């Protein structure tokens, strides 16, 4: 199937580079894949702008399924059709699954070693920071209007601080955001 013609298809996106990019995201994505997805797709390969990346993530969040898995399916489909989706999925999901199974077989024996636990505690703390930093980077890249910043802040407070159920937050925030953006287009 031919890739869709909306927007330009960067020349550097072949089936091989697509697979390698998602493999890199999958294998390096310690403590959350999203920072790596932005790093590889936006910074290293320049296949997407920050705006396009944020929009894709937004679509992935609304659809069911793991966000980065959805991202792989969608970008694979956009750039290389069905085979692109399958290649991106293999890179981001199936290869790391094999790695984690190998890890799982000896995890039990090292999990309680104090040095391992301290290293993991340090890396986990930084991994949370990577995700927060990625959000900041996206805001800086998009330079959204005030109404969008307020919406992002409201969603963050509702889901992160108040721990409101995601479905309810989406049910309120999305129609409101669409209504406002629709008016701005008029």
């Amino acid at each position, binding site marked *: 199937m031919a890739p869709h013609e909306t927007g330009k298809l960067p020349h550097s996106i072949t089936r091989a580079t697509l697979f390698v990019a998602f493999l890199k995201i999958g294998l390096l994505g310690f403590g959350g894949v999203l920072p790596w997805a932005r790093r590889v797709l936006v910074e290293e390969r320049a296949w997407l702008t920050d705006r396009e990346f944020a929009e894709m993530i937004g679509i992935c969040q609304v659809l069911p399924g793991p966000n980065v898995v959805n991202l792989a399916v969608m970008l694979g489909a956009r750039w290389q059709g069905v085979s692109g989706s399958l290649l991106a999925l293999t890179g981001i999901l199936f290869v790391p*699954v094999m790695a984690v199974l190998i890890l799982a077989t000896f995890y039990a024996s090292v999990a309680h070693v104090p040095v391992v636990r301290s290293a993991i505690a340090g890396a986990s*703390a930084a991994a949370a920071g990577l*995700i*927060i930093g990625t959000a900041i980077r996206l805001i800086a890249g998009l330079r959204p209007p005030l109404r969008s910043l307020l919406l992002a802040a409201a*969603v963050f407070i509702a889901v992160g601080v108040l721990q409101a159920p*995601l479905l309810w937050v989406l049910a309120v925030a999305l129609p409101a*955001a669409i209504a406002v953006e629709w008016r701005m287009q008029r």
Partner: protein
Amino acid sequence: MNTSFDLLFEIGWRFASLSLLAIGGINALLPEFHRVVVDIEGWMTSAEFADLFALAQLAPGPNAMVVSLLGWKVAGISGAFVATIAACGPSSLVSYFAIRALEGMRNGTLRVVLQRALAPVAIGLVLASGYTLAKAADRSTGALALTLCGAAAIAATRVNPIWILAAAALAGVAGIA
């Protein structure tokens, strides 16, 4: 029918039936997975479930790989692959057809409106997941400092995240976290 096939089939339909409910990712469905594999099927204890969850967080790759580990625990390698495909297959198909439909819209007003509306929601959710992880990880001032350093390094520099994580792991060994 041999039992291992029955078991794989059981994993398959159990996980596939949850796939389309996973709005916001697999983590949103963890309580439901717990209910199925621990309470209903009795495939593992609650503690084993928690261990597999922790391992999926530590390992590289999407956190959704916790479903692969659950399948692995129940039925080995084939269980891992059946679980992964069952949990991610239906939602992946939806994503595939959704992007096709969206691209079919070309650059119509509706598409622009949808994208403009979705981006800030996505950023809010990314920030929320970072905050939630930080709350779980930061049990000391040192750990909080590592989180802030990690965020600042990503936001303000182009340093490769692998070095940030490695430095933080060393800091953890040094007793900072």
